[in-house]
């Protein structure tokens, strides 16, 4: 597994164009976020973060209660709720609904949860054409790829690549101007919106007391997907619940700003069930699919439960010096960046990619920008401990374990520590004039691949201290 992980990272680092594109795009989003949360723009920013954290904490700690309230309200408003334990059950529910209603075409708005459960493939297998309508998602669907970034799925694509795709897959003449490419997508997808029998959306929030789904977007594709077809299906993880509509006054300002630096996006939809009697348009039918898929297991882990507070803003991706270099495709699973690094191991299991929690310098920039104050570095450290504990249980002791056993023993015996220091001095002498070492053997070879290494000091501090004490 880990060889593939390192290879993907290498691949990303060697692609100069991609490096530049991703670094620039995330940098732009990061700067926009920063500009929107300064005291002049949002004086209560830190206070709102604290509130958001507490609302999520309370909701997760009483999740059964709020899910029951939510389900009851949805049903009161004429909707239906389907509870799904895993990907298979989600696929089955939607597949059956599509079959029963004779659906041939479904339009989809962005939903990372639907990626998680491989919904599109399942729909295709059931003979339903499932079309992504978010422009970025539409592009990567044509390319057969997965989202590169939570908020900007096609961040890695150039206009030339988009032109290639449109030419090959849509049968249009080659167009490289971005506004015209956007118009092509508009025309193609407009047809789909109007013809589709089913619209599938995600949900940024599920409001328990209202029985409502809240969708935040700029394009308007979610509005169209949830208003034009006669059936609206919302797929959402159980952790998306918030207690009250009023809580949106805390979350919406944080989400927009953290994601793209916008106090409010172009469209925020608050949808509660099918069209009411007398309303002019809207779906006949509404189904909310609540997805577990490993979330209840995370809930059970007190130390890592706050992973579920995530509102999928992408701020941690945009600020992470590692993500900005290795990009979305280096990460295993559907979610990338710092949130992906803690979510994926908990959903797919640590052994899926045991090195993932170690692919971080623990700089803490992610925790600093997280609108709901998830302490991502602390959770990464916990996961690292679990990986090593599992290795110990499996009796898989590598040189690193051995190294730390010896290290710990030395560190508990100061005299031996000092002796080891003297030995290192003797072995690792540099060019002699204080210049740093250009090449080292063994594990430290990786260090000297790109930097020089310091020679041990001729006299350690403790030696100098002793001298000093002897001769004041």
């Amino acid at each position: 597994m880990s060889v593939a992980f390192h290879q993907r990272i290498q691949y990303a680092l060697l692609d100069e164009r991609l490096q530049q594109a991703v670094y620039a795009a995330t940098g732009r989003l990061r700067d926009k976020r920063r500009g929107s949360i300064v005291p002049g723009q949002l004086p209560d920013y830190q206070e709102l973060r604290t509130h958001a954290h507490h609302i999520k904490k309370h909701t997760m700690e009483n999740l059964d209660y709020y899910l029951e309230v939510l389900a009851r309200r949805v049903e009161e408003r004429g909707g239906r709720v389907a509870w799904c334990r895993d990907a298979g059950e989600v696929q089955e529910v939607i597949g059956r609904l599509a079959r029963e209603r004779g659906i041939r075409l479904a339009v989809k708005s962005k939903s990372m949860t639907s990626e998680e459960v491989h919904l599109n493939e399942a729909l295709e297998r059931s003979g339903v054409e499932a079309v992504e309508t978010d422009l970025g998602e539409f592009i990567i669907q044509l390319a057969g790829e997965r989202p590169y970034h939570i908020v900007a799925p096609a961040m890695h694509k150039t206009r030339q690549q988009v032109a290639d795709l449109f030419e090959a897959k849509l049968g249009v003449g080659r167009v490289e101007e971005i506004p015209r490419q956007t118009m092509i997508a508009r025309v193609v997808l407009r047809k789909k919106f109007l013809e589709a029998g089913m619209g599938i959306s995600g949900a940024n929030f599920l409001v328990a007391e209202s029985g409502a789904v809240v969708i935040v977007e700029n394009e308007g594709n979610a509005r169209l997907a949830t208003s034009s077809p006669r059936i609206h299906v919302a797929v959402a993880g159980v952790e998306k619940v918030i207690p009250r509509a009023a809580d949106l006054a805390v979350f919406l300002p944080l989400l927009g700003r953290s994601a793209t630096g916008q106090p409010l996006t172009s469209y925020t939809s608050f949808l509660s069930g099918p069209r009411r009697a007398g309303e002019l348009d809207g779906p006949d039918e509404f189904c909310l699919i609540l997805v577990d898929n490993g979330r209840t297991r995370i809930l059970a882990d007190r130390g890592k439960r706050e992973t579920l507070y995530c509102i999928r803003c992408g701020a941690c991706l945009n600020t992470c010096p590692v993500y900005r270099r290795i990009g979305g495709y280096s990460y295993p699973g559907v979610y990338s960046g710092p949130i992906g690094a803690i979510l994926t191991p908990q959903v797919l299991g640590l052994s899926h990619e045991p090195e993932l929690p170690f692919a971080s310098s623990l700089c803490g920039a992610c925790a600093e920008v997280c609108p709901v104050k998830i302490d991502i570095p602390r959770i990464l450290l916990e996961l690292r401990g679990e990986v090593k504990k599992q290795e110990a249980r499996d009796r898989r002791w590598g040189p690193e374990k051995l190294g730390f056993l010896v290290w710990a023993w030395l560190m508990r015996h100061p005299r031996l520590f000092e002796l080891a220091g003297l030995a290192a001095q003797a072995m690792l002498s540099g060019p002699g004039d204080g210049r740093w070492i250009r090449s080292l053997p063994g594990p430290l070879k990786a260090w000297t691949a790109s930097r020089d290494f310091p020679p041990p000091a001729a006299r350690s501090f403790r030696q100098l201290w002793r001298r000093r004490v002897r001769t004041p």
Partner: protein
Amino acid sequence: MLEYRLFTMATRVSLFVTCLVDQFFPKIGLGMVEVLERLGYQIDFPEAQTCCGQPAFNSGFRGEARQVGRHFLSVFRDAEAIVCPSGSCAAMVRRHYAELFHKDPEALAAVRVLGERVWEFSEFLVRVAGREEVGACWEGVVTYHDSCHSLRELGLAEEPRRLLRAVRGLELREMDLAEECCGFGGTFSVKFHDVSGSMLGAKIESIRRTGASAVVSTDASCLMQIRGGLSRAGLPVRTLHVAEVLAAR
């Protein structure tokens, strides 16, 4: 939340130099001694000290980290004030020991006491000793690198800068990527050395753009990473710990 009580000049300060400074960069330790004595503190150096345990903790080896941590707790048991030239080590004791020893009530009790008494060097000078001007003189343009642990775990953005600005003859010029991680991250620098190298490259470039003749930080590990990159690139920029600058006359 730490309460910063102003200590009187008669206080004894115990040095925790850190394993890295002891073996590789002893001048940083000497710099600390020079400055603290200048301010009238009595220094002691418990010789049985070695390490705070962070390398093992960060690599997931909590058992080994606990062993070393217990040694640290016993070495410094009677210390009144512990000062160390490392934001990451101070943060380890103050912020991570409680979690590390959460199942060990005896160690936890020691952590609660010690946790109130461990300071990073520049933090101690500004927030405890209440000093910004410490009689230092250093001619030249320097730029400052925020170590992630000092900045984000200890909240030290202003303190080191205030100390540097108060140095006679010193001009502090900010680099645009001051708050970006240098790419060290302990074993990350080896396990993911190419990513680490790329992060280091960006930091070096940011330093170069300032035209400064030296880069200063509160953490020797960052300085080791940065100097390693400067040296490899053949750039004549010096790396200095805050203690070394403040010790200069």
